[in-house]
């Protein structure tokens, strides 16, 4: 080892080391996860019973908006970027990311962006209230201009961060693979991130375009989204979802990658259908660009448009199905054990598939007219985002934590964390299918009496899920501070890949000479 890290705060401010930056991303995203979770707890507390209890409807709308924004942009996306920073160089046998200086900048743009966003809570007009989708004209003409402006700059900043992060990942994967590691030998996590990074580079500028048009409408006297000035409010939705639909795959593809690493390990059997997994990931990414308007079936598109978007959306079920079947085939005739990373992966598999089924139901346009903007949709996307992205992220942390820290987490505590999360999650979101079908619209600060029972169950589940994430934090801190030392390179019997060839904890600099892949 050439030299160690600098000491004190400057190590973290100036660092260009991929492991340090990975840790910064992971800790930042965890902080945001807790913050976004706190917003969710306020929402669920208010919805515990019909009637207005704790907060005013304005504040309720701020909470739903901030919960969505913080979870998507602050928690899930940075979590996977952090994972990419930590793992991609180690998985491909590279000494660091390709552009370390830019790596530092792309992380350090995030805290000011979210500080700005959070600061809007304390402005006179309050935080943004138009939902995480911030549809115009509610978010332009009818929003507090100060709040809207700060929000727009925050989105720009996090967008710049994402684009830099993705370019870095693309450059690293394309240029710095160990000798002998052809594209079709890359670990699946690396593959999914390569595709995700291209998605990010393609759509973050679209989001930037949308918020720039908003900024011009608010301060520049233009009328992009104002019908009174010749604009079109639906234009906003088209632009937003052209970003927003690929965005959901940006969130879920790295999760697919994680699961594709973990299931083979605990099945002690190679991943089934490696190449079809790669093709499936690529087809999902390509399809994601032509299905955006399925979020807008009720805006009044022409019949031909509705049919096109319906058919294209249904098609996504095919490659996604291939992935699920391949994972199950990986376990078939394996030798399976059930450590915590595997438990989270199995929960991912089952719950994500349920989210996929409701996704197919939502793709059917005539039925979607009834599902759209109801709690059925809320249930659907939380099965995909939480049971998909967040559960796979928990699995990833438990899976690689021994490699990161050289210490083993407490398996019994981790299993408690798993079961409370699993039960809490399902109690929260499964009943939302029912209230949605029975007619409860989303983003409601109060509701009619027939929805009361299921909302109460939902809230109880949410508190359980929320508390169990504090346990997660405790487990991680206990591991870092005093977990049992694990010096073996391979923590898990069935683990394969270059990251398992380096010592535990992974040294500050790995692979000063590239390993050879056969």
């Amino acid at each position, binding site marked *: 080892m050439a030299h160690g890290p600098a000491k004190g705060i400057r190590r973290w401010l100036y660092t260009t080391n991929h492991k340090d930056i990975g840790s910064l991303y992971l800790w930042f995203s965890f902080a945001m996860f807790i913050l976004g979770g706190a917003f969710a707890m306020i929402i669920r507390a208010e919805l515990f019973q019909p*009637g207005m209890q704790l907060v005013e*409807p304005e504040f309720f709308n701020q909470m739903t908006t901030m919960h969505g924004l913080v979870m998507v942009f602050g928690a899930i996306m940075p979590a996977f970027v952090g994972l990419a920073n930590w793992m991609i160089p180690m998985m491909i046998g590279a000494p660091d990311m390709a552009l370390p200086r830019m790596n530092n900048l792309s992380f350090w743009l995030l805290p000011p962006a979210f500080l700005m966003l959070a600061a809007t809570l304390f402005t006179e007009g309050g935080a943004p209230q138009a939902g995480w989708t911030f549809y115009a004209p*509610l978010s332009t003409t009818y929003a507090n201009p100060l709040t809207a402006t700060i929000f727009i700059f925050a989105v720009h900043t996090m967008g710049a961060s994402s684009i830099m992060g993705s370019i870095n990942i693309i450059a690293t994967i394309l240029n710095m693979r160990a000798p002998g590691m052809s594209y079709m030998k890359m670990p699946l996590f690396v593959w999914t991130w390569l595709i995700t990074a291209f998605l990010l580079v393609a759509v973050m500028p679209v989001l930037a375009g949308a918020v720039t048009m908003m900024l011009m409408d608010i301060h520049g006297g233009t009328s992009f989204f104002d019908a*009174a000035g010749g604009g079109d*409010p639906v234009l906003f939705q088209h632009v937003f979802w052209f970003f927003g639909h690929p965005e959901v795959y940006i969130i879920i593809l790295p999760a697919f990658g994680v699961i594709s690493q973990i299931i083979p390990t605990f099945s002690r*059997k190679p991943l089934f259908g490696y190449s079809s997994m790669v093709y499936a990931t690529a087809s999902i990414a390509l399809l994601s660009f032509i299905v955006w308007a399925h979020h807008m079936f009720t805006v009044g598109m022409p019949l031909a448009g*509705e049919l096109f978007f319906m058919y294209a959306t249904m098609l996504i079920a095919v490659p996604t199905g291939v992935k699920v079947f391949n994972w199950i085939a990986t*376990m078939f005739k394996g030798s399976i054990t059930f450590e915590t990373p595997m438990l989270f992966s199995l929960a991912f598999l089952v719950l994500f598939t349920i989210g996929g089924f409701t996704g197919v139901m939502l793709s059917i346009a*005539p039925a979607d007219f009834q599902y759209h903007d109801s709690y059925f949709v809320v249930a659907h996307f939380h099965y995909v985002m939480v049971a998909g992205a967040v559960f796979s992220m928990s699995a990833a942390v438990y899976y690689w934590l021994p490699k990161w820290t050289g210490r083993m987490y407490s398996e019994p505590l981790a299993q408690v964390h798993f079961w409370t999360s699993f039960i809490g999650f399902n109690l929260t979101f499964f009943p939302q299918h029912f209230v949605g079908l029975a007619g409860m619209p989303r983003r409601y600060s109060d509701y009619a009496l027939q929805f009361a029972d299921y909302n109460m169950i939902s809230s109880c589940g949410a508190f359980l899920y929320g508390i169990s994430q504090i346990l997660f934090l405790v487990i991680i801190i206990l591991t870092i501070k005093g977990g049992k030392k694990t010096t073996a390179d391979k923590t898990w019997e069935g683990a394969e890949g270059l990251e398992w060839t380096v010592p535990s904890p992974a040294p500050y600099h790995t692979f000063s000479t590239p390993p050879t892949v056969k």
Partner: protein
Amino acid sequence: MFARAKQLTMLLLGSACLWGGSALAADSAGRSDENMPIGVTPVSQTVYDIHMLMFWICVAIGVLTFGALIFSLIKYRKSKGAVAANFHESTKVEIAWTVIPFIILIGMAWPATTALIEVYDSDEAELDIKVTGSQWKWRYDYIGEDVGFLSILSTPRDQIENKTAKGEFYLQEVDEPLVLPVGKKVRFLVTASDVIHSWWVPDLAVKRDAIPGFTHESWAYIEKAGTYRGYCAELCGKDHAFMPIVVKAVPEAEYNDWLAQKKQEAAELRALTSKVFTLDELMARGKDVYSKNCAACHLENGEGVQGAFPALKGSPMAIEADQLTAHIDIVVNGKSGTAMQAFGGNISDVDLAAVITYERNAWGNNTGEIVQPVDVYNHRKGE
């Protein structure tokens, strides 16, 4: 409540099965708290059938997929001595599970397409209703009939604030429901005056976004008389949860009587425009109009919400004599770029005069000024 909690715990063990169970219960009852209503229009019945078809296909696939998963997890446990095989691909199998789902999807797309064509067929309607969403009320205009009115949440504030017990139709009741005839094809022309709303009545299977500057069509042919309740389904600001929809479907004869009565009421109200009212008359009427139309933002006590909705109590606009015209103007024409909408044409000149008078004399604003309906009428006509 407790029984349901128990059900849900069971559900965690075999979630898909129980969902199927509750959906079955809906089939026999027609209406349920767990499933989509079958509804009262041909379209809603088609949509319900498609929904259930998709659901059962998903359940079937789920049973197969999760069955294979559970089988593998039980059979190939390491603790039971399972030794891993080493196969990792099979082109035939992978092609099969790409092609078979594709064929299933074609089977789903067929009924979905015919249903969608039915949903879009709004031609040859016998009755046109213009539906306008505005923060946070619905306006219904019977095209060609000279009848139109606002429909506003009628649940008392006390129930929302938990001061009194909640009624049976808590948050699902309005002062004036949309009245429609049974057995006629009704077309809805849906638009909005400020932000995007969405007009959703589950029993009619109608959900159409109301978008400012654009008008979109939807339709319903109601087969059964009754009261059907719905909601605004697009986030539209603070009172999003408080703008319900109530549709009262009645036999045609009853509908015609109702329409005639509505027309007469409108004519009587117009006649009142020329009448001269006393302060007390206007104050009494104005209080009522205010609590229906204005209190959602400016509050019953006129104090408004800081940073969002200006106070009227003690406001220069409402107490200074030289601001009277400006006051009338903002109520009649609204203020663009804010949540203050134009009420001229939405409520009668008598009510406008009453509410302006009320605002200038309530909560200690005691200006003593009286605005007569004719003043509002003249202002609207630009005099």
